[in-house]
């Protein structure tokens, strides 16, 4: 299992990258009043046939060639099972995939949120042609980050130039901390 929510996001969005997605939407909602944590990752990658969707959360099913074990989705489903939650995987060949969980925020096994800004710049660094929209709602405040907006300001400088990435990391950390501390 992963140590925090940000690590799950990184792992699952990497699945989207392997499925050749060009647009990945990450949505994280924490609502302490209703005591739920929802996370969804949806992409416009190649999608999966129905029979693959059925096997995808089986740890002994994987499409990779290096090993006969694939734990990414299995971990994510286990997290939902463990934390009074639900796991949903929807996919359509040629259209894309959405994976989501809805778990009890105060459950003892619900991991901390973790370092979201590190996860996001790790994803952005991997491929500058992929766009991300990250929406984070914490109680009733919301923060949205869209790589398209950043790219529109960069002219021909790539978004994954290292000093641009570091700037984005600090920008995100500031905004995310502010949101979690309820200052917005």
């Amino acid at each position, binding site marked *: 299992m992963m140590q925090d929510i940000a690590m799950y996001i990184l*792992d699952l969005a990497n699945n989207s990258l392997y499925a050749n997605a060009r647009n990945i939407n990450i949505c994280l909602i924490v609502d302490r009043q209703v005591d739920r944590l929802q996370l969804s990752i949806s992409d416009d990658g190649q999608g999966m046939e129905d029979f693959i969707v059925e096997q995808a959360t089986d740890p002994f099913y994987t499409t990779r060639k290096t090993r006969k074990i694939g734990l990414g989705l299995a971990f994510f489903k286990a997290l939902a099972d463990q934390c009074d939650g639900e796991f949903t995987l929807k996919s359509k060949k040629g259209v894309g995939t959405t994976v989501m969980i809805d778990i009890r925020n105060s459950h003892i096994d619900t991991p901390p949120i973790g370092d979201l800004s590190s996860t996001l710049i790790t994803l952005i660094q991997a491929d500058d042609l992929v766009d991300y929209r990250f929406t984070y709602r914490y109680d009733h405040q919301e923060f949205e980050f869209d790589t398209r907006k*950043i790219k529109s300001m960069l002219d021909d400088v790539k978004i994954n*130039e290292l000093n641009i990435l570091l700037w984005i990391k600090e920008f995100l950390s500031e905004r995310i901390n502010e949101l979690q501390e309820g200052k917005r």
Partner: protein
Amino acid sequence: MKSLAELEKLRDITKKKIELRDGDCDYRIVVGMATCGIAAGARPVLNALIAEATEAEYSCTIAQTGCIGMCTLEPLVEVFDKNGNKTTYVLINPEKAVEIMREHIGKGNIVEKYTVGSVKR
């Protein structure tokens, strides 16, 4: 607070830096970023490499890959030189990553103690 106006300034500085770069980089660094790598701590390793590379402006590119195949030795970092020679570093953490950056990428000395060959069977 970081403002978007700052980003425009940084863009112009970066543009100038890109113009000054001469040809290919000396090294290519690859970090394994599959489920096994992520669970073992590959993300902070990649972030440390990015921070150190930016700070010291080493001649290298940084890339990510999937499962390299030795999941128990993650986080894995591979360094390729210009001639295609590969050094595989295993069980890396952010501190070791910075050390590799300074010694191997900065000075050209392989850090033997962290290589896959140094692991006792």
